[in-house]
């Protein structure tokens, strides 16, 4: 793909009960959003290991969205509370090593928030597009791709 029509690659890691179902609702409501996102479904945000986020960047993601149930709505009572602490630390760590915060975003999207899902995904896609390709990671990926 040439520079001019470059499109960001977005990975969304979401929980099954709220955000995945919210994204389903956006579909059944025939709302439209940008096609850049690929969703990875896990049972709960509590299941999301930060290493998944790194792996996504290693596989060429320009931005990652992590999304789950609103606090208090977790299907598993507290998975999102545990996740929230991890995110706080991990996000700061990535920021500290120089990864722009736009590249890793977080949201609460409930099963009834199809509209919010659309807004969040469009927002993330636009923000990452504005940042351009994740050249920092691409540079270190390149070396590896050569080996593969």
């Amino acid at each position, binding site marked *: 793909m040439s520079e001019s029509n470059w499109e960001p*690659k977005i*990975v969304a890691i979401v929980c099954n009960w709220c955000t*995945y*179902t919210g*994204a*389903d*609702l*956006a*579909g*059944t409501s*025939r*709302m*439209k*959003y940008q*096609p850049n996102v*690929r*969703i*990875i*479904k*896990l*049972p*709960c945000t*509590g*299941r*999301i*290991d930060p290493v*998944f986020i790194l*792996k*996504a960047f*290693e*596989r*060429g*993601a320009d931005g990652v969205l992590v999304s789950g149930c609103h606090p*208090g709505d977790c*299907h*598993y*009572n*507290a*998975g999102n509370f*545990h*996740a929230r602490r*991890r995110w706080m630390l991990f996000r700061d760590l990535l920021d500290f090593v120089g990864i722009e915060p736009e590249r890793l975003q977080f949201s609460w999207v409930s099963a009834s928030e199809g509209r919010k899902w*659309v807004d969040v995904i469009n927002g993330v896609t636009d923000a990452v597009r504005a940042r351009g390709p994740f050249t920092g990671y691409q540079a270190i990926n390149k070396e590896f791709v050569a080996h593969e």
Partner: protein
Amino acid sequence: MKIGVYICYCGENIGRTVDCAAVAKACAELPGVVDSVDYKYMCSDPGQNIIKNAIREKGLQGVVVASCSPHMHEKTFRRACSDSGLNPFLCEIANLREHCSWVHEDVPAATRKAIDLVRMAVEKVKRNGELEPIRVPVTKRALVVGGGIAGIQAALDVANAGFEVVLVEKEPSIGGHMSQLSETFPTLDCSQCILTPRMVEVYQHPRIKLLSYSEVEKVEGFIGNFKVTIRRKARSVIEERCTGCGLCVQKCPTKKAPSEFEQGLAKRPAIYVPFPQAVPNKPVIDRNVCTHFRTGKCGICKKVCGRDAIDFEQQDQFVTEDIGAIIVATGYQLYSISKKPDDSAIKGYGEYGYGKYPDVIDGLQFERIASASGPSSGEIRRPSDQKEPKKVVFIQCVGSRDEAKGFTYCSKICCMYTAKHAMLYKHKVHDGEAYVFYMDIRAGGKMYEEFVRRAIEEDGVKYIRGRVSRIYPSGGKYIVKGEDTLAGEPIEIDADMVVLATAMIAQPNAQKLAQVLGVPYDGYGFYQEVHPKLRPVEVSTAGIFLAGACQSPKDIPEAVAMASAAASKALVLFGSDQLEREPTVAKVNEATCIGCFYCQKVCAYNAIEVKEIRDRKGNLVKTVASVNPGLCQGCGTCNATCPSKSIELLGYTDEQIFAEITALG
């Protein structure tokens, strides 16, 4: 690996935006894919047959169906797989409809995305393992917590279906709030007349074990296999010996304790039965007021008891019960606006003077005043001087629907019971005037609206739409200052008595009990059902069901209906000897587990147990975590938290997720 990929057009739903044929073609090239087929309706019988035949004929080891959301047809396709001998967990769904064709318009972009989604699913399914459903035995015995009308109904339903029930009630008698009510809307039938036969039925039922004056202390185990510890509070009366003759109650010299049942409007002795129809009809000693417990003297009750049933030395006892299903029916309490609540967001209603002015009372107190068994034998008397009040003001929504000072929710029953109160008052005090301050009248229910109209039109209750700003005493009366928002002017009523319809709120210990049971609760302490519409009596902890006002404010018919629903859920469980659970549970790698137990800290279900690994001589080698698959709900929080990655969530293993992510690049 032999993987089959099946792409559904869903009529035009997918086919319009995704070039399904192109997807099938592209996917056929993916490593491991031996069959790649597109078809109009995969979920139809012929569609399913394509998959079934391919499994048999091509010896597939994994299936990817690219169709609608897995929430829609995952079960369908898994069944199709297992019908033809493939483990159902070797089937993955790529969501081409809700997550692709319906939300995008550009065909090439949507097609590219569809191929990506299938590729991710293919890579994942290659790493799926065969999982077998987890089977656990079922103890066909129910615990019902709370002996109000909801608990009574649930207990009777389960017991009448032929199963044993343990009914735990924290008060000395079952009956709950309903036993305190005078008449019930909209039929005005006597509350106790319809309730007491049910209470007796519970007591006499051969399959119901009633533990009154008891509380649930601890719950261990999981659906079908709970172990429940119950604290039997010291009654100071040996139930088996007591005949309920009541002599001790009569002779007790301490008669000054405010009666809980009468809402403080009457006194009771230190040894008492809450009310004459109590079940069990066995007294209890209130150790806080009893002279013997305070000074060591008296002991008259012990002297007069012919059966030697008084036991001052009695201690709390603990009993353990094996239980298969738990029905929680712990009810509600009324918001006591006299006290400043702990929650600083709630500002109270000090300006109404509840607790300060004796004739400003709440709804339950009015029930007692209006009840034939109440302190004034059903004659309407105001508490301060026992005079018949000639003008009574009823105020609705005290604490309910009030974001500024109370709770945001509607307490639901107050419109109806206020109409009932005003009506009962008018029936008993013919020359009296009844005023009702309201915000809206919410009378949805069979014969409810008609009931309110009757209060207004036939009984002449004066409804004023508006709020009350202040109540203050003046010359033996209470000046109720408010606003009539329909007339658009301030209004003052010199009332003899004021009745506040205070909000229905969660029980004071609701959150504590929720933690014991593992039941989630909302911001107000009401218990949280799994789904507000489709699973209204279940909670996220399997095997626990909700009945009545512990879930949200409810009137009697709703509480009873919910109780029967909860009972039927328990009976569904008792319908089989074993139950099957999704096998997506966590599993520990004992070889690498280091025993830090971070997994235990994050587990919301107490599913992580401590396991000791010993050598042949019995020496402790190390302590590791172990998952109880009956308790594990499969959230995977332990998996993400484990520092050495020694615990994995089956069905969502790291290897599977990595494969999905890797397939992106």
